[in-house]
């Protein structure tokens, strides 16, 4: 692979650099310390944003981080990957005053990085042991958040994780330029630092574990298994060499040795319109692809990727094409048919074009793998839970991407895990 002169020094470096201390001070001082602040109402985890920003402004970095982590134990990841432009920063009143919100996400990263770099002890202590044992399935954001809160409340937690590493999509799915310097694993170690949590890797529900067995051996079970399957395009040529699922591609990049990044095609086509598509496209570009084209079947406004992400793709040299759906993949590339929206319904126009490609990345959504979920109610491809994150099975709770709580985002999964832990706690102590 050859890197052109304007390629980044490393495709594994931060795309958005951390704030310097001076930048953080200046930015923190832009916060108005709003009352009942709009930004807090817009954060799924409800972090006391004005409080933590004020702490940064006064030089109390550890206090700032503790305020964040009290509500969101993955504040570090969220400060890096949250689509703040649709969450907290979207609501910030500085948008009204100056058309530029306080950079809440970057400040959050500044505070949590500061704590993780300097703290010698975990910021939270465990309540006295309750003697209760909880099984958590899946060591992703939902599972780890749930485990952490349960441990804090004094319960003993065993996490069963199918894969070799903890972190879920933090480790395997998020683009490397968002999670530079092995952050996902540093954060896992930090979270487990509270104690009382054992993680068993290579333990898959559905293979060597069953819900029945977990219900028998534990006082409660939490399912944070995410969405393990990928949607198919169901078009001819989908299984040709060079055609790959975008999540699998990102995983390959994430797990490669940064000194030997995987090779990419010269001309890459990414199919899809969500943040996975954008991440895969930018990543391919950063790995040295000459042309990266992201093709989405509807318009920019309907894309799952936010306007900011779309812009990021473009400023990183990705070409966006809209209103085109793939109809087949051949040796020379992908054939697309132009589409149009009429009365809200998408239809082909009959006009086609060939988008040349030697690598095709599919990013058309993840699905729940329901094989080991006997006894649970599913709806719309998700596990059904009630307001207390209880599933149809007694003692079994669920949260994160595998339920329909909000958007499929890290921050939402962390919130689900936290609230489910509180619900499990009241169930265990009732």
């Amino acid at each position: 692979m050859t890197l052109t002169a304007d390629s980044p020094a490393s495709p594994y470096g931060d795309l958005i650099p951390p704030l310097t201390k001076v930048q953080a001070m200046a930015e923190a001082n832009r916060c108005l310390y709003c009352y009942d602040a709009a930004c807090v109402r817009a954060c799924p985890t409800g972090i006391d944003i004005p409080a933590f920003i004020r702490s940064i402004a006064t030089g109390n970095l550890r206090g700032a981080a503790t305020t964040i982590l009290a509500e969101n134990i993955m504040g570090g990841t969220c400060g890096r990957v949250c689509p703040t432009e649709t969450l907290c920063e979207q609501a910030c009143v500085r948008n009204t005053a100056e058309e530029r919100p306080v950079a809440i996400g970057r400040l959050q990263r500044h505070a949590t990085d500061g704590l993780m770099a300097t703290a010698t002890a975990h910021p939270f202590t465990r309540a006295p042991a309750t003697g209760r044992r909880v099984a958590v399935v899946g060591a992703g954001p939902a599972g780890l958040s749930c485990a952490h809160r349960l441990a804090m409340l004094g319960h003993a937690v065993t996490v069963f994780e199918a894969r070799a590493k903890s972190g879920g999509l933090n480790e395997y799915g998020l683009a490397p330029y968002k999670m530079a310097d092995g952050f996902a694993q540093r954060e896992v170690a930090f979270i487990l630092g509270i104690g009382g949590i054992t993680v068993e890797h290579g333990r898959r529900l559905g293979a060597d574990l069953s819900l029945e067995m977990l219900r028998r051996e534990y006082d409660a079970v939490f399912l944070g298994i995410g969405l393990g399957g990928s949607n198919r395009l169901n078009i001819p040529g989908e299984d040709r060499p060079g055609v790959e699922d975008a999540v699998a591609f990102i995983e390959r990049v994430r797990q490669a040795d940064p000194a030997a990044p995987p090779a990419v095609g010269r001309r890459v086509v990414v199919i899809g319109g969500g943040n996975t598509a954008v991440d895969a496209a930018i990543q391919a570009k950063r790995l040295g692809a000459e042309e990266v084209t992201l093709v989405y079947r509807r318009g920019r406004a309907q894309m799952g990727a936010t306007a900011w992400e779309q812009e990021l793709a473009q400023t990183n040299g990705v070409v966006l094409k809209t209103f085109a759906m793939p109809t087949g993949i051949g040796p020379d590339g992908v054939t697309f048919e132009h589409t149009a929206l009429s009365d809200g319904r998408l239809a082909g126009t009959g006009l086609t074009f060939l988008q040349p490609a030697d690598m095709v990345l599919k990013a058309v959504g993840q699905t729940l793998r329901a094989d080991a979920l006997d006894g649970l109610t599913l709806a719309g491809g998700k596990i059904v839970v009630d307001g207390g994150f209880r599933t149809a099975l007694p003692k079994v709770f669920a949260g994160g991407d595998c339920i329909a709580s909000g958007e499929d985002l890290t921050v939402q999964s962390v919130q689900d895990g936290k609230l489910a832990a509180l619900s499990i706690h009241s169930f265990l102590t009732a």
Partner: protein
Amino acid sequence: MADLTCTIAGIRSPNPFWLASAPPTDKAYNVLRAFRAGWGGVVWKTLGEDPPVVNVSSRYGAHHDTERRLYGINNIELISDRPLEVNLREIAEVKKAFPDRAMVVSLMARIEEEAWAGLARRIEATGCDGLELNLGCPHGMCERGMGSAIGQVPEMVEQVTRWVKAATRLPVIVKLTPNITNILWSAEAAKRGGADAVSLINTVNSIVAVDLDAMAPTPVVDGKGSHGGYCGPAVKPIALNMVAEIARNPATAGLPISGIGGVTTWRDAAEFLALGASGVQVCTAAMTYGFKIVEDLAGGLSNWMDDKGYRSLDQLTGRAVRNVVNWNDLNMNFSAKAVIDPALCIDCGRCHVVCEDTSHQAIRIDPGEGRRLFTVIDAECVGCNLCSHVCPVPDCITMRPEDTGLPYVTWPQDPRNPLRTA
């Protein structure tokens, strides 16, 4: 174009901006740069009798705002630490090079007539335009019986002024210390002694910050600190009040005033002038930004005067003095209510929480469309102004005077006053 020429105690300068007696005026090098930059005059850094004093390291402490701008500094510096002869020679040279600028020289001596008179005579020989008596330095010199040790005792202020007036034909400005209980006592004493003008304020006694690692006040000198003199934007309110007190006091009314303390912008200068000063002196702002600020000080003042129709400084000087009254002369029947402009409001909620937590529970929040709607409950609002001060958006909250139909009634006349006189 407004005429900015300025006369205080008979000393003329092309504009009212003088550099106060301090490091910026300690030697020819600085003063020449200042004059080239456009300053109307200087008060040369205080001269004393030889041998020169010795200064410590370090000398300045800082008070920053949240954006690391300087609110104020304090210093534990003494008077000029250069030989008298050198200073006198340079003063003469600079005055010759810039004859149109005001060259005032600050001095300080033991409380003995010959010490003051001798120094004054030697300074007069330089050809300078006037003298300023430093009766205010609050650190170091006062422990030697000088500076504020003199300035805090009205009898000594009067005595020293008289000695110097008798020794020289030059105009004498008496620089007052704010570290007293009533500025009028020293101002009146200076006038009795024959002062041609007063200048104020010198620095305010302070510990500006504590170094929490060294556990000592800043500036830290080998592990220890001392109280120092505070100056800069933070002291302006103190200075304005003292200037106004002298300007409206019958015994000192008409005594020319050189306003000092926190002058940073032309607006600050205009405020000092409005309260009775004939010119201003600047130290910290120059030490913070350099001499170039004089361009905006003079240009801004001149433009504003043009806009307002003031053609010369004397039309402006003292304009606000008649509106400075004692509390007992305020109208008890006046009423203003806060009014929030919903179009400018950005929904930060700060007005609500401060009124709710610390004032009169007068700001209501309603859901509103998209943004919350903040409204003042007139019946509860006492017009205290707090909300308008905390609102981050200029002019979003205004205070609207209410037509009560009631007459101007002062507290001594108010029926609610159990001790009323009328």
